[in-house]
């Protein structure tokens, strides 16, 4: 779906992107993770030609991006930037309707679409559609930003630290909601972040960058378990494995053994199951009809690997 | 009944100086012409003398009012002495300005010349009646503060000439210089004795002199030029509307110094409208009915 091959971007001789090569499959979320200034945003913006590369090839949906006009290319790709970038002088509905109206959809269709999008991101149409961006909380604004990027139903969405400005508590909620939306829509997503937990939670694959170069690219498990160098390892810290546990649902690792106590919530993660065991000092906690054992959690990553 | 309009769609622009007398004289012309069926664009009290002059030259004004003595600034090649006599002054500017396309009509017999005024009290107490007396008073070291226009203070045919002729000299601290020459202000300052002022620039036709209890010092040597107001019409306009030139020809002839003083007084002291005063004059003179 998206293919970068030996892509380099120089600013006055400084390589913000240096020989970057990767592919994003249809329906996949690729998370680009790295420290500040490593070239994440630049890489993202090369894809929709907000920035023109110095050398290399970029293909989107099998076509070289140079064969399309920049503006047209961008109209077909959703784009969510840090701090939302909502247009402060337009109400929520007009913000969301931006690309559809550029594309010349008829009014009725636009209205329906706005309603549908607000629904999708969990905002009440009547309450929110006529608000101005400054009347929204950070989390609400973020949702509108996502709704706007998806309004014209693009196959591809680029997201640049979309939840960067949201406080930690709301952030988790947004991340989970985004996961759900993605499960419905199966977009092809490139997602930039410097938050390790976020990368773990959302990424099908993670691409770790450093000083403009791709250091390692692969599934979160592979990266945590087989970091290719110290830099990658240090990134996940000593607690990388725990973070990884948040990716798996406890129910998937449960067995039929009966266990006492109040069961975990249906979509609890392995991490939550582990926390619950430690809290209660038990080696087994109930989940669904059965229960899950500490040893299953201990084995989980191993099982995943094979 | 309404007279027929004689210059449909081509109004004649009439202007005058932005001062009291300009208001009266300009309106006299305006009303006289309107009475004869001319459509006039009213630019009475249009601007300062030089703005007014240039407006006439450039055709911004068709008709204006100016003073014969001002010719000394407008045209070159005349001896200073021609400007201190009424007839030679008029003749000089009339002939010279014909080349500039401006025709000077007969001026009023009213010399609105520059003079120095003092209060009656001052005059009596120090027995200062003429400029010679003033010179003596100043040279004796008498207190004096003279309010005048910058322009008058700085010309040979003005204060510089007077100082030379009568043999005295104002010190800078004895002068209050205004950038304009309108004497309503100087005379008011004098009559109120504001800031110690006890002498002021006056024009001979100033209407407020009597009411303010002021006297004009005599100038036996006649230093400042003669300033008689006259209507001026552009040659183009005169050629187009000969009747207008006819009307203006002697319009001011009947205006005496006393008459102008009285009219000025009514405007500046009593606050009457210059137009009303002009109208009254025209009626009295039988030009309007």
């Amino acid at each position, binding site marked *: 779906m998206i293919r970068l091959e030996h892509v380099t971007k120089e600013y006055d001789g400084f390589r913000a992107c240096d020989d970057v090569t990767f592919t994003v499959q249809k329906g996949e979320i690729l998370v680009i993770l790295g420290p500040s200034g490593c070239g994440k945003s630049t890489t993202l*913006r090369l894809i*929709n030609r*907000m920035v023109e590369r110095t050398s290399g090839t970029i293909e989107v949906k099998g076509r070289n991006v140079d064969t399309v006009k920049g*503006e*047209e*290319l*961008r*109209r*077909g790709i959703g*784009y969510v*930037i*840090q701090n*939302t*970038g*909502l*247009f*402060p*002088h*337009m109400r929520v509905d007009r913000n969301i309707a*931006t*690309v559809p109206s*550029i594309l010349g959809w008829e009014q009725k269709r636009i209205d329906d679409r706005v309603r549908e999008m607000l629904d999708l991101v969990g905002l009440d149409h009547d309450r929110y559609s006529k608000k*101005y961006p*400054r009347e929204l909380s950070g989390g609400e604004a973020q949702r509108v930003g996502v709704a*706007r*990027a998806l309004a014209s139903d693009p196959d591809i969405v*680029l997201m640049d630290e979309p939840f960067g400005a949201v406080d930690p508590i709301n952030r988790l909620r947004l991340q989970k909601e985004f996961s759900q939306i993605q499960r419905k829509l199966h977009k092809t997503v490139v997602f930039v972040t410097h938050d390790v937990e976020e990368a773990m939670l959302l990424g099908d694959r993670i691409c770790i960058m450093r000083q403009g170069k791709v250091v390692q690219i692969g599934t979160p498990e592979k990266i945590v378990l087989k970091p290719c160098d110290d830099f990658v390892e240090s990134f996940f810290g000593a607690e990388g494995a725990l973070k990884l546990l948040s990716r798996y649902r406890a129910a998937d690792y449960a067995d039929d053994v009966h266990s006492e106590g109040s069961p975990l919530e249906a979509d609890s993660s392995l991490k939550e199951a582990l926390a619950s065991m430690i809290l209660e000092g038990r080696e087994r906690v109930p989940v669904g009809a059965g229960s899950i054992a500490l040893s299953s959690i201990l084995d989980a990553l191993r099982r995943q690997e094979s | 009944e309404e007279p027929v309009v004689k210059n449909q769609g081509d109004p004649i622009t009439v202007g005058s100086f*932005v*001062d*009291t007398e300009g208001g009266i004289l300009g309106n006299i012309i305006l009303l006289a012409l309107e009475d004869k069926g001319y459509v006039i664009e*009213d630019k009475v*009290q*249009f*601007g*300062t003398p030089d*703005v*007014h002059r*240039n*407006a006439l030259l*450039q055709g*911004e004004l068709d008709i204006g009012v100016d003073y014969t003595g001002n010719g000394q600034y407008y045209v070159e090649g005349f001896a200073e002495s021609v400007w201190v006599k009424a007839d030679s002054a008029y003749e000089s500017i009339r002939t010279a300005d014909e080349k500039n396309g401006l025709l000077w009509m007969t001026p009023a017999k009213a010399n609105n010349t520059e003079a120095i005024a003092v209060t009656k009290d001052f005059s009596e107490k120090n027995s200062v009646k003429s400029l010679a007396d003033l010179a003596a008073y100043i040279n004796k070291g008498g207190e004096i503060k003279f309010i005048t226009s910058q322009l008058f203070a700085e010309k040979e045919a003005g204060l510089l000439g007077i100082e030379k002729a009568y043999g005295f000299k104002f010190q800078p601290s004895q002068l209050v210089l205004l950038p*304009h020459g*309108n004497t*309503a*202000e100087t005379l*008011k*300052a004098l*009559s*109120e004795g504001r800031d110690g002022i006890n002498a002021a620039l006056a024009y001979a036709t100033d209407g*407020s002199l009597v*009411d*303010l209890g002021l006297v004009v010092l005599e100038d036996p040597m006649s230093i400042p030029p003669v300033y008689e107001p006259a209507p001026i019409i552009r040659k183009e306009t005169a050629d187009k509307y000969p009747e207008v030139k006819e009307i203006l020809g002697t319009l001011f002839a009947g205006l005496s110094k006393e008459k102008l003083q009285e009219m000025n007084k009514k405007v*500046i*002291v*009593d*606050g*009457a*409208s*210059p*137009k009303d005063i002009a109208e009254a004059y025209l009626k009295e003179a039988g030009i309007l009915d």
Partner: protein
Amino acid sequence: MNRKPEGTLLLFAAAGIISTFFLDFAEAKPNRILSGLKLGSFKFLGIYAGILVLVFAVVIVSSVLRDGKIRHMISGMAASAGIAVLLLSVGPMAGLAIPAGTSPRITISSGIYITLLCLYIILGTSMRRLKGHRTLKLVLAAVAALPALFAVASGSYSDLSIMKEYQVKKSQFAGNLETHLFLSFGSTLAAAVIAMPFGYLAYKKPTLEGKIMTPMAFFETIPTLSLFGILMVPLGYLGTIGIFKAIGVSGIGWAPAFIALTLYGLLPIARNTLAGFKNVDAGVVEAAEGMGMGKGRVLWRIELPLAFPVIFAGIRVALVQAIGGAVLAGLVGGGGLGSFVFLGLAEASSDLVLLGVIPIVLMTLTGDSLMKAAVKRLEIGGAV
């Protein structure tokens, strides 16, 4: 709950009382230019002066009231009543105070202006601090404003010197007002049309910023009057050329004034245009571009609307400046209300000066506050 007396009310009520007792309210002159008898408030207004003192006393008492709402209601009502009494009584009382003589004049003196100012400030303060109560505020404003209109319209002021000046100048007043409006609004519009593209250019090409702004800033250092004067020469020359002559360009009249005022308006507008565009959140522009908007669309749909409140604030500054500057047109034959000012100055008639000044001040104040309100309105949909 505020336990301290309210300073603003106290201060201006005290100032009002002092001005009522000690300043002249009118001058009864034997004629237009001679000084005359100065009249204090009680001599001039009689019982109504007593009412004014009472009004200020009420304000002082109200300023120590504990309940803010009641306090401001009382002081506001007192002030607007005071304004109404003052404005309505001046006309008839002037009629009574006219001295004998052929052409006597009654001139309003500083006391009335200062007392009025104190009352307006008390009223303004009370209304600002009174939250809600829209109808009450509307009534207060009406009580304060309508009497002046009524008095002017009904001819109640006809005995005042300034109205006599107006009677004399009536035929020129409308024309001069119109010229003044044309000069100030027209030149501001022209300045906006020229300066906005330059401001935008300076934004797009930062290297040009100095080259664009420095000359504009230079105009600002040339005294207004000199610029009028200096322009007379080239314009006088231009005026002899056919096409310019046809549109009325000449060395005197409106052209030099109009051009000079336009030049003065350039800097504030260009500067604010630059600042306005710079202020637009880079993220917003990035989002717009990222959604496939073309350059023109980004400019018209995003950048311009977002920058406009700031640009408009610059236009406001330019307008206020132009209204004031247009006075000088009176000196170069350009007409406008400045004609009255300079004729008044020359004839030593402060009433005639005021006949020019008061409309200018009103024009400035209303223009300024309307534009301010407009800026606020623009911002409702805008950034911030």
